């Protein structure tokens, strides 16, 4: 029993990342009808927003500390971050410590701007072109983004720690009446799951309860009619693209402490996210979220030793295997709408 709960918990954080990326992919696909292969790159750019902010905050200058001496007996030079000068020592240290959560605020404008530029500058010209062309041009864009990041930040993963408060692990087992240490779960992953749930809820609420969201949903159903009613649907779809980019970026920001950002993390997640979108059903937002969590949890179950003993290697292929089975038995995916991407 405790092993099963542990695996479900383990699957949640990866599932959250899949769900967030797949949600953005589906938003773009549902509104603009574009297959965006650069979405993984946006996730990666988000993670590097966290890296950038934590580097910016720790920018420092050297000060001679008279009270301490180095091994030669001279006064010691210490690096003092500018943030500490401005906010005082304790507040400054806290700000540096909380760089990753602060990066959420930093990344939202960056990601929305990036998304809008991408849509207006490039993807706008590809609405009328075949899906293959869209795949190819966004694939090229993904390579370019990835290489730019590689040149700026290097090829090695950059550790980006979470705030100290979240460094420990929660003993989940005790809460649920199992032995201590049976189910241990890092706080940050819990935070990640909660964060993902909030974002997903916010996106759905935005689409469901605001006038803007209503218009967007109407546009997804019938773009032409909405246009004929005198609504500038293109502008709203552009904003939705920016929003989808922001969702991917936020997923990346918060993922940075779980997995040190490196330049190819976007590509790694992209392939899986596409599989998630297809399993959930092209164009279905709830499907994307459901499939994201489902596949994340399935993946972590498959990596249990007991299951690996029966089916060796199953953990490596489970997601693809599920995708193949789903595509062949339920061609529209779990919750796919009729008439989307059917030929």
């Amino acid at each position: 029993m405790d092993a099963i709960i542990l695996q479900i918990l383990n699957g949640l954080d990866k599932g959250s990342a899949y769900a967030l990326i797949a949600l953005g992919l589906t938003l773009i696909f549902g509104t603009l009808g574009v297959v965006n292969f650069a979405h993984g790159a946006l996730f990666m750019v988000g993670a590097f927003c966290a890296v950038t902010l934590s580097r910016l905050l720790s920018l420092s200058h050297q000060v001679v500390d008279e009270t301490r001496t180095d091994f030669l007996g001279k006064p010691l030079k210490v690096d003092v971050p500018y943030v500490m000068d401005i906010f005082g020592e304790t507040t400054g240290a806290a700000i540096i410590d909380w760089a990753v959560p602060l990066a959420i605020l930093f990344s939202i404008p960056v990601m929305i701007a990036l998304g809008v530029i991408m849509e207006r500058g490039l993807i706008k010209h590809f609405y009328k072109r075949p899906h293959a062309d869209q795949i190819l041009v966004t694939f090229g864009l993904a390579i370019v983004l990835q290489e730019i990041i590689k040149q700026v930040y290097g090829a090695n993963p950059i550790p980006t720690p979470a705030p100290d408060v979240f460094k420990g692990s929660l003993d989940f087992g005790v809460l649920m009446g199992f032995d201590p240490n049976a189910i241990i779960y890092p706080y940050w992953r819990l935070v990640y799951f909660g964060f993902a749930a909030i974002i997903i809820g916010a996106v759905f609420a935005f689409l469901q309860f605001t006038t803007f969201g209503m218009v967007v949903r109407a546009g997804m159903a019938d773009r032409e009619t909405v246009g004929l009613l005198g609504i500038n649907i293109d502008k709203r779809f552009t904003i939705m693209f920016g929003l989808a980019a922001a969702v991917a970026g936020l997923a990346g920001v918060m993922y940075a402490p779980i997995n040190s950002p490196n330049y190819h993390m976007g590509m790694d997640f992209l392939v899986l996210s596409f599989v998630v979108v297809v399993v959930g059903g092209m164009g279905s937002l709830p499907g994307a979220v459901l499939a994201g969590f489902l596949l994340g949890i399935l993946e972590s179950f498959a990596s249990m030793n007991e299951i690996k003993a029966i089916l060796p290697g199953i953990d490596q292929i489970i997601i693809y295997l599920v995708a193949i089975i789903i595509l062949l038995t339920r061609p529209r995916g779990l919750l796919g709408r009729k008439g989307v991407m059917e030929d």
Partner: protein
Amino acid sequence: MFGLGKRDFTLFLLVAVLAIFAPFILNPFPTDSAMAQFNAGYPDLMQRFVIFGILAIGFNILFGLTGYLSFGHAAFLGVGSYSAVWMFKLLSMNVIPAILLSMIVSGLFAVVIGYVSLRRSGIYFSILTLAFAQMSYNLAYSVLTPITNGETGLQITLDDPRLLGVSATADGGIPVTNLFGLEMRAYETVTMGPWEFQFSVGYYVAAIIMLASFYLSIRIFRSPFGMMLRAIKSNQNRLYYTGLNAKPYTLAAFVISGMYAGLAGGLLACMDPLAGAERMQWTASGEVVLMTILGGAGTLIGPVLGAGFIKYFENIFSKINDQVVHSWVSFLPDGIEDFVVGIIHPFVGKGWHLTLGLMFMAIVIFLPGGLVEGGQRIARRLRKRDGTKTETSTTPAE
């Protein structure tokens, strides 16, 4: 001639001449000159030109004719390499059985993968092929280690049985791949004045196979079967309404193209008897797509051009480092020189993938027909300037 139309025969002849004289054509600069780094006429690179040419030709039969965009072709490449190396391990170091086996095994893989994937079309097909390729890649890394030797990659060793050959050469070394005694790695260097040309056995074996594959692909393009595939691309529904089942045709195209990829993988192993799982990674599949699009999907010569183009720039661009750039712009004042080098720096050397990505985007945006279309446009403009009457779109719409 040989069942080819006049224009096709000219094209084939052109490719044949280029392939035969490649060691000369690709080595235009004297060995000691500063430009020698742009020479591409060394065996290793030339072999890769033709081998990836085969891969792209095969991919084009699927993508160019039927419009099905497979993102998993690298799986066949990897399978081909593994089977070839196993043939070297078990049977003999002769390349013929290895190539045959790699084609058969990848063909079988293609039948299975194609049968399942082709039940869906469009982006679903791309995702399915991608899923299969990633599955093969992950399995090759983990569970199938006894067959694939995991991360190290499959290599030939001294203890291999090699039933028809020898486990080790007389002096105790590992035998080399050969074609009835002709060693693949052997090459002849001819010096002509300041120029040096290398003629490699491996290159010519691969080039002959490439020419044969190219010939076959021309025949497929011009055959009723090829017409059928084009019909599938332009309108599959209409085919169904006329009472034709498109599936066997697409499956045949998929298997043929998979066997081409297997052949390319087998040849890679023949030139260097080593097979690793990274050959199956999806970035490798992406590379094939890049080559075909860059050259011009659906055209005969495009994929070969694209493969050559990408492999050339991969090797040459990545060799250009800061010193080289400095030496180019040394005529400028110091400050400006550093500035110019700083601008060029991200695009060359290790950063050549950035150039590739930008180039690829530019091609997809401005020249969807690839280099071939670019050439046609230039030719048309030149013809216009001559004042002769312009032909109205002689190229078939594909």
